[in-house]
Every structure is written in C-alpha cells, then in structure tokens.
C-alpha cells in the first residue's frame, strides 16, 4: 500500500494511467459537438452564405473539464484509495490470524471478517505466509496453524462462521505451536470475553513475536436462564451501558410465531468485570407456556437467545379434593401437602371439578375422590391433552365400583391393602429404585420413606409398562396411562401422611414437579422409542447457529447425558433437546467477563479499518458522465430552437 499523507492506495500502479489525461484533453478538444438540425423556411435566404470565421467549433471548456474529471475520478477509484487506512501489522515474517469464533463473536462477525480479510490482503501484498486459526474448538484442521499462501486463508475466512458455543482455545499451547515457525506475528481478533486457556496461549504467542489484539467494537451482551421455582433471566454485559429489552417469542393462539411480550430489564448491577441484570419471568401462565424462546433485542448471537424448556413453563394445576376433610386440621388434609409442594412452581386453582374445569388447567390433581357427575367432562378434558393425577385414600378404597372407573390408568381391586399395621403380616415397604429411563430417573430415594397402605391393581399384561414407580415388593406406587392426547396418573398411596410418609419428604415435591412438568409434552409417542437402556441420551430437537437463528438439527447424533451436562460444545451445540418426556435447552449465554491482554498491543476500538473511497469516486465519475450527457444534450441534442426575442 502506497501512502500519500492520510491517503493510501491499494493499487498505486493504476495511477500511471493518469499520464494519458493530457492526450485525452487534445482528443476531446478536436472533436466538435454534433450540429443540431433545425427546420427553417428561411433557409432559402441562407444559401450561398459562408461561415465568416471558418474556425472549428470547440467543445466548451466546462464540458471538457467534466469529462476529464470523470476519467480522473475513475482512475483514482481503480487505484483503490483508502482514507486513513487501518494500522499496519508489524513484522515481516509469518502471520497468524487468530479469530475467536464462539457465539460472542457473532454480533460483530462482519467486522471481524472484514478486518481479517484486510490483514490477509496486506500480508498478501507483502508476500508473508499466513495461517488462519478459528478458535471454535472443532478439530479437523490438524493440531496447529498451517502457514501457506494468503489465498488459502482468504478462502477459509470466507467460509468461516461463528459457532453456537463458547470460544475454545487449544488446551496445550506448546503442542499447538509445535509445527509453527519460531518467529511469528499474531493478529488476534478477540470476541472480548474471557475464556479458559487464553492466558497460556497469549503468553506462548507473545513469546514468538508481536501480538496485536483487535477487541470488538461493541459491548458484548448475553442472556442466560436461572431455573428453579421462579425462573429468572440474567442479562450480562461486558461494559456498562443501556441494556436492550428482552423479547419473548412464541406462537400466538393462531399458531403464528410472533413476539409475545417485551420485558424491560431492571437497572444493571456491576459484577466482576461486567454488569448483570436479573429479571424474574413474570408472565401470565397462558402466555408463559407459549413462549419458545427469549431473545435480546438487536443482538444476533446464540448467547443472546434463551430457549424455553420445561423449566420456563409454569403449569396451572387444579387441586380438587373433598372439602369436608379440609375443615379444621390442616396437617391432615391431603390438599395441604399438595399445595405446599406445588405452590412455588405452579399456579394453583382450587375448587370443585365443576369450578376448575372451565379454567382450563394443565394438570388436575384429584385427591381421594371420584369424578362423580363431572366424569364425562373430565374425560374429555384429558382426551384433549390434560393430565389427571389422582391420589388414593380411604374414601377411594371404599368405593364400590372402583374397578369400573374409566379415569384410572389401571383397573383397581376394591379394598386396597395395608402393610405394617397391627393386623397385617408384612412390614411397611420402601420404594424401589426408579428405572433409569423412567420419568423419575435420577431422583434419590430417602431411606426413611415407607408406604403403609396402597390400592392394588388387577393383574394385567400392561401393568409393568404403566408403572412409573413401585415398591420394593414390586407392587406399583405410581401408574400412568395415556388417554387421548392426555394422560392419567394414579398415585396408589395417599397425598397426606395417613398411608405413607412419602408426603413428608422432599422426594414428594420432586416427583410432583416431574409429573407436573411432564404435562402436555407434545411428542409423547416418541418417549418409548428414545428411552434407551442405560444412561439417557438427549435427542436434539432444534439447534441454534452462531447468530442465534434456529435450525433443524439435521443428522446431529444424540448427546450423552455427561456431555450434555457440560454445556454447549461442538458435540452439543446450543439448542433444544429432548430425552424421554423431558425437554431441556442448552443455552450458550452466560456470565461475561471482559478479557485483559497483558503483553499485547491492543488496537484501539476507534481505529476504523480505513474508509475505502473507491466506490464514492466511481459514483462521482458516473455522475460526471451523466452530467456530461446532459450538457451535450443541451448543446446539440435539442431540435427545438431557443425562444428568441420575436
């Protein structure tokens, strides 16, 4: 690049064409404008008249200047002028262009690509070998950088894209640089966040030569989800500043995806390095259950998207029991335990069946009671996708037509059984470990849980398939059956401490949470297919690309639970996964810690990569040519004589 003051030329040899301008001047001067033709009856009086001064009519000087200006502008434009070109990378040896390619680089990816392309172009002009390394943690390019002609790096650069996981650096810098030249300069296009293994890599590169770091020009922002009873969105930013709004996206009642809500984050608090703001998700349950993802407005990166999974959905649970039993002693009421267990994580509705059915709950817990007159409406509600959880109890055991009740997953024997009482033979039973692929997989069973009484089903070939939890003697504790689009669940013991002490333990809350969250899982049919033996695998349903756009998973392999637990990675990109009936999202965003660069030259963010003037000059040349055509038309093109003084 040739420099003329603040003006640099990418192709200075084109300027030599400027020598031709004076020749053009002479040529243009010699060509007169075309005579315009005029119909004029007085021509007869003109015959025989000779021009008084037989000098060739010259092109007007301003037209000439316009044409020369257009040609000069075109020559200048082709010479690739750049106003205040970006800083030159020092050194003359091999150049390593290191690009952070995690989700954090996505918002400024265009600039990053342009800056890298500029560096590669500069290196090409200087004849330096160039290696491009994308720090996206994907193998396949060997252990270390490969130095070659700049053209190879350019092609790789064009194909590069940010990835939906965190930037990943080589674990072992020595091994990474084993094949590289002893001296090399580095241009590091950083995403601005701190990542593991970065200090070691920076030290190793600084030991080989100069390191120039280009930080992103914009503030890095990320969105993450904190689960729990009240899920909250956490907005992290690498520097203080205005926080963008959070948009809740999802299908509207017609099924058309659109923005459902716009959440304004609270004022941020300064944390270690950056700032964070926490916003509890406080939406009406009908709206909240429809949300499929939360996105940061104006941030195109996978880290600014939180996909909604079972954690976000807040179920509406209706509790229906016998009102008489709740009078007086609260601790004896089964509804009390359910209320305490579900209140933090679900919206509760209480009343009789006739009262709660019009509220369209997701789950109805029917405690120790029969549907009675509402049986038909309840059956229809289940068939349309509701989840009915029934708890056994003394009143249910005393029902005469228990075996004929259609709203039970299994056919029950009337009477039930008691174990461990004064008149029984056996001791109270514990709960058998849960099946590894079942709904309750992974829950730990406290040793003190004992079941003293339960309702027993009739023997049935389907019984094992319908059993979700069983006692140590193999009799079912929780059974379930599908009915229409919904499901019927029966807990064969009571919801209070009368038949078992299950309701007094934390396991009761966890089991209820699982049961409630399994409500309305759309593709329940896949459950049996994907639940493989042994450790569960997470089946990707939808993945994000680096820019936060949802994509179909393609042929992505199911992710083992161990890899899934480690967060987004090349084998498990950010996205929505399903295992059995549970749906969980891997979200890329997390806390953002700004990176520091000891021992490296940091390019100031204000240093623009230079303003290329070529396009403007070409436009100017085109404009001048258009004006020239207009001027020529004014001089010669018009056939109409000018209005004269008559």
């Amino acid at each position, binding site marked *: 690049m040739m420099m003329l003051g603040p003006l640099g030329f990418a192709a200075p040899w084109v300027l030599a064409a400027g020598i031709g301008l004076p020749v053009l001047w002479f040529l243009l001067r010699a060509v*007169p404008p075309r005579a315009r033709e005029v119909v004029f009856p*007085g021509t007869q009086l003109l015959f025989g*008249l000779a021009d008084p001064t037989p000098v060739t009519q010259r092109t007007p000087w301003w037209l000439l200047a316009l044409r020369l200006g257009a040609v000069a502008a075109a020559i200048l434009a082709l010479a690739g002028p750049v106003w205040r070109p970006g800083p030159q990378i020092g050194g003359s040896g091999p150049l390593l262009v290191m690009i952070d390619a995690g989700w954090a680089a996505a918002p400024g990816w265009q600039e990053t690509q342009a800056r890298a392309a500029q560096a590669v172009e500069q290196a090409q002009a200087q004849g330096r070998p160039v290696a491009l390394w994308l720090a996206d943690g994907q193998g396949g390019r060997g252990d270390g950088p490969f130095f070659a002609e700049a053209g190879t790096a350019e092609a790789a650069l064009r194909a590069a894209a940010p990835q939906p996981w965190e930037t990943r650096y080589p674990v072992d810098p020595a091994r990474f640089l084993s094949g590289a030249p002893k001296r090399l300069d580095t241009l590091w296009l950083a995403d601005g966040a701190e990542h593991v293994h970065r200090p070691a890599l920076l030290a190793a590169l600084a030991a080989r030569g100069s390191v120039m770091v280009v930080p992103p020009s914009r503030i890095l922002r990320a969105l993450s989800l904190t689960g729990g009873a009240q899920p909250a969105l956490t907005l992290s930013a690498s520097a203080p500043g205005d926080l963008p709004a959070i948009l809740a996206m999802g299908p509207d009642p017609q099924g058309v995806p659109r923005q459902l809500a716009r959440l304004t984050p609270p004022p941020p608090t300064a944390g270690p390095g950056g700032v964070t703001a926490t916003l509890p998700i406080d939406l009406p349950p009908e709206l909240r259950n429809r949300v499929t993802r939360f996105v940061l407005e104006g941030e195109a990166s996978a880290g600014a998207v939180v996909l909604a999974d079972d954690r976000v959905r807040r179920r509406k649970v209706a509790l229906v029991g016998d009102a008489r039993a709740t009078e007086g002693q609260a601790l004896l009421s089964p509804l009390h335990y359910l209320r305490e267990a579900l209140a933090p994580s679900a919206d509760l509705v209480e009343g009789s069946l006739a009262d709660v059915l019009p509220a369209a709950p997701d789950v109805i817990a029917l405690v120790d009671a029969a549907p009675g007159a509402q049986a038909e409406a309840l059956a229809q509600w289940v068939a349309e996708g509701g989840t009915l959880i029934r708890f056994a109890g003394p009143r249910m055991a005393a029902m005469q037509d228990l075996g004929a009740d259609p709203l039970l997953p299994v056919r029950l024997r009337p009477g039930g059984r008691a174990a461990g009482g004064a008149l029984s033979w056996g001791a109270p039973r514990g709960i058998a470990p849960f099946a590894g692929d079942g709904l309750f997989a992974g829950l730990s069973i406290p040793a003190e849980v004992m079941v003293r009484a339960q309702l027993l089903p009739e023997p049935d070939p389907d019984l094992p398939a319908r059993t979700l939890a069983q006692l140590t003697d193999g009799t079912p504790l929780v059974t379930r059956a599908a009915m229409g689009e919904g499901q019927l669940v029966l807990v064969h013991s009571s919801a209070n401490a009368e038949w078992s002490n299950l309701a007094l333990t934390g396991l009761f809350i966890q089991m209820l949470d699982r049961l409630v969250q399994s409500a309305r899982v759309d593709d329940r049919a896949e459950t049996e297919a994907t639940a493989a033996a042994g450790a569960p695998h997470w089946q990707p349903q939808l993945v994000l690309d680096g820019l936060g756009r949802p994509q179909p998973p393609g042929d992505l392999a199911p992710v083992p639970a161990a890899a899934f637990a480690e967060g987004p990675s090349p084998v498990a990109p950010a996205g929505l996964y399903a295992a059995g009936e549970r749906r969980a999202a891997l979200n890329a965003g997390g806390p953002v810690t700004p990176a520091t660069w000891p021992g490296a030259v940091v390019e100031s963010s204000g240093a623009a990569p230079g303003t290329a003037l070529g396009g403007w000059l070409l436009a100017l040349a085109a404009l001048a040519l258009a004006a020239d055509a207009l001027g020529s038309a004014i001089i010669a093109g018009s056939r109409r004589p000018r209005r004269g003084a008559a």
Partner: protein
Amino acid sequence: MPELLLAAERLAAAVDPGAHGLRRAGSGDEFWQYRPATEGDPAQAIDWRRSARSDAAFVRERERQTPQAAAIWVAGGPGMDWTGDPARPTKADRARLIGLALGLILLRGGERVAIGAADARAGRMQAETLARDLLAAGPADLPPPGTLRPQRRLVLIGDFLGDPAPVERLVHEAAGIAAGGALLQVLDPIEEAFPFSGAVRFRQPGGDAHQTRNAGALRDRYLARLEARRGQLSRMAEAAGWHFGTHDTAAPPAQALLWLAKALAP
C-alpha cells in the same frame, strides 16, 4: 372549414374598413333618398306616388354603387406550413384566416370575390365557397393562370421567401392590364429575428439544407438579405401601382386585415 369560417367572420366583424361604402346618390339598385325635383329632371324621373302626398314633385334617387371584383390567393408552399412556436398558428393558417376575413369584408361591401381563377360572385352564399376553395387550394405559391383579369384586383398572401422572379412577372402582367392588387408577406417571428447560434444544419421544409458552424455570425447577413427582399418587393409593387405589406404571426391579424381592406379601397 367551419372553424376557419367562424374565426374569419369574427375577425371581419371586428374590422370596419370605414371608408368603403359610397354613401351618395348614383346608379344602383338600392333606394337612397327622395329629393325635390329641380329644373332639368326628366319627367320619368319623378316618383309620382311620393309626389302625390305633397304639393312638390319628388325624384327618387338610388345609391351609387361601384361593384368590383377581387381575387385572393394564399401561397401553399411547404414553407408556409411551419411555425416557430406551437403557441402560434402556422403561417399558412394565419394567411388563410386573413384571406377569408378579407373576402368576407369585400362581400359585405357588395363586391364579387373569388379564390384564384374561380368565378367571382357576390352575396353571402359566396362566403362558404371561399372557405372551401381556400382549404382546397393546391400547394402553389402563385395563383393559376387565368386569375388575372382586367378590372379585377388580386391579393397575394404568402411568405415570398422563394425566387422573386415569378412574382415580379405576375405583377408586371397585372400592371399591363390595369389590374390593381396587394402583396402581404406573412412571416414567423423566428424568421424575422433569426435567433440561432452555434453549429446548426438548417433544413428547408421539403427541400435542401444549409450547414453552418457558427449560426450567430450569419444573423446580420440573413437579416440584410431579408430586408433587401422586402425592399425589392416593395419597389416592384409601387412600380405596378400595387401595395406591399408585412405581417408576423405574433401580431394580431386585425392589423393586417385593416391594412389590406384599406389598400383595396378604391
């Protein structure tokens, strides 16, 4: 044709040549006045019906009329069908309008009028014939032979930019048989001002072209030639007892019409 006739009637109504009517007693058809008989009046001149109403004898006099004939010719060459500005009528349109209006004025004065060599007739009915003949006239600059007759005046309307020799011959011939007349040169303002400059290729309508590199420098000489042509026509008309006038299409046609009517008055 109706448009032309209507415009010409409006124009003719607006123009009153004034001195045309011979308001005195003479030999004519129209009643003029009764006057007391004097010595020398023949007896058959006495109007007995009028005289019987009083004691004196009265003579019935008629208005003196000098019916004359006139022929009008509007040049129809391609150069006439041109205007320098769409807002102005073409020279041919203006010339026809003036010609027809003149014919209407002459008809009003009781004269016989014709276009070209046609038979001159008087009366209101002749107006439509005039308009039809004017529009149907051929593209000739000069009237067909036979137009020139003794005691018949001839009005030539045209631009007279072509060869002046045929016009001169015609005027000489007319002078020879004592036929009076008038020449009206109708020009566009562009032709009178020559507002051109730069490289221009002048093309005559339906004719040759003249190319120049500097039209501005030709202006003075063009205007001089035009002046010379007018002088020549004027001298020629004067020598033959004719009248020569000019008109440009930007001016109101009434001026030229008034001039023509006065020039034709006896």
